[in-house]
């Protein structure tokens, strides 16, 4: 693939990270956000990653400048008309995503690949009723996008084979490891990982073992890098609970995904993990 023109919509942590990943591979990026302050923050985020890469000797000062220059902040969606692919990374609101793809279907060339970085909304639902749904593909990065190697390439009901293949190759081109998934709740990771959190919560709720014991056991007996409770504290207990709820709802209340009341109480109490100073563990300054 020659260098492409890539549009990234939404300049939050995810969008900024994705823009960086694309620019690092040599692509030119138009980073779109309606909020000027968010765009500024995204640029300083990219600058800070680049500065670290320079100090680690991964890139030269000149490469740093080049990568930085490849990302152009914009606030007008019309400017995305010439893009080869657009990656949408706005917040997880169905109506917002649908309105974006509905506009993109008119603005972009007919062969522009339209990718959505959703973690929990059905690709089929996002593409439903939108012109040319065959080019709308799920493209799920993991946080932090510059570091995590995986991309779930998700085939919606109307995604074409050809476009899925293009998206897969684009993921490889970005230096990532793609996997192919059909459009099902939670895709692969957020679905298959559910028991790691949910069953740990159930086990402690039933007083079979304490939170500390479960974390110790999963690391020392299981070889996991982090225990389920310290991991929830890192992810954010609210985020983790929302993911479980979404998978549970979208599987029409299949019992395997039933959320935990213990986790819900943590969210209600504002004990969200590291970011709130306490979750399953205490975090001092």
């Amino acid at each position, binding site marked *: 693939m020659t260098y492409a023109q890539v549009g990234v919509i939404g300049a939050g942590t995810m969008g900024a990270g994705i823009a960086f990943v694309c620019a690092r591979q040599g692509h030119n990026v138009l980073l779109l956000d309606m909020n000027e302050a968010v765009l500024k923050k995204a640029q300083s985020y990219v600058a800070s990653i680049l500065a670290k890469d320079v100090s680690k000797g991964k890139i030269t000062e000149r490469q740093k400048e080049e990568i930085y220059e490849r990302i152009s902040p914009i606030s007008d969606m019309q400017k995305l008309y010439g893009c080869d692919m657009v990656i949408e990374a706005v917040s997880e609101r169905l109506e917002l995503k649908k309105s974006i793809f509905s506009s993109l279907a008119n603005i972009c060339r007919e062969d522009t690949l339209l990718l959505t970085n959703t973690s929990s909304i059905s690709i089929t639902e996002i593409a439903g009723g939108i012109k040319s749904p065959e080019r709308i593909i799920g493209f799920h990065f993991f946080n932090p996008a510059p570091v*995590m190697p*995986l991309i779930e390439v998700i085939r919606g009901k109307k995604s074409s084979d050809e476009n899925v293949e293009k998206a897969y190759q684009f993921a490889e081109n970005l230096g990532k490891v793609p996997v*192919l998934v059909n459009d*099902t709740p939670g895709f692969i990771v957020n679905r*298959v990982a559910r028991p790691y959190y949910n069953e740990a919560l159930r086990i402690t709720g039933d007083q079979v073992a304490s939170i500390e014991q479960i974390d110790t056991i*999963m690391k*020392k007996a*299981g070889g996991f890098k982090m225990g389920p409770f310290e991991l929830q504290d890192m992810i954010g207990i609210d985020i983790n609970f929302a993911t479980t709820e979404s998978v549970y709802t979208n599987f029409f209340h299949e019992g395997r995904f039933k959320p935990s009341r213990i986790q819900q109480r943590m969210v209600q109490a504002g004990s969200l993990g590291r970011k709130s100073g306490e979750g399953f563990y205490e975090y001092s300054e």
Partner: protein
Amino acid sequence: MNTVSNAVLLAGNSPLYSELKILLESKGYSVLSFEQADEHKHEIRLAIEVNNLDLDIKKSTIKQMDMLLPANVPILTSSLAITATEAASWTEYSERVCGFGTFVPLIERSLIEVAPALQSTPLIVEQVKSFFDVLGKESEIVEDEVGLVFPRILSLIINEAAFAVMEGTATPEDIDIAMKKGTNYPYGPLEWGDRIGLDEVFAVVKGLHRDLAEERYRPAPLLRKLVLADRVGVRSGRGFYSYEKQEVYQP
């Protein structure tokens, strides 16, 4: 010193059997089968029973141990598919029964979970803990529930991955890659299941479903069928993946 006094009676058809035998012998224990146990029954310090999938065999093995051994000899039973409390309920001297549970390979387990039955005496639990110390394994005491902690959580992850394969959500390879690259698992769940033995994994899920009777623990039909077809993973040459040995052709 009589070396036979370091005797352990070991029985069961879990893949843990052979690994435990090697570990025990490397620590200076003599490992006895039922056939050898009869004439040494007063020298046996501990019995270990490792059956998981077939609960009828498990029951008869534990009963046989209980009848054979003096009442103060601890019986350590694998509580992956059934609670230690239920296993103890099959015995005459139920206070000497204690549960434990883990998966192969033992070399990757620096810690082993111990689950005392409701009937277990504190003395028996102490003996079991010091026994694992001698084997060079840390132990963690948890309450007695099917599958304990690690085997229960991992089996349910593998079960979920099996549902995803069955439904055609993704290939086994892609599911394994996703879990390693997207969330840092040490192994993909399906290759992990193949290494542990899918019969062991199925025994845990089936046991949870049997005891807790919730849809949450429903075994994936594909997992059940693979076990019925003896495609239990690396051990049988085939599971979610194929491990058939290449025939070496010599002209």
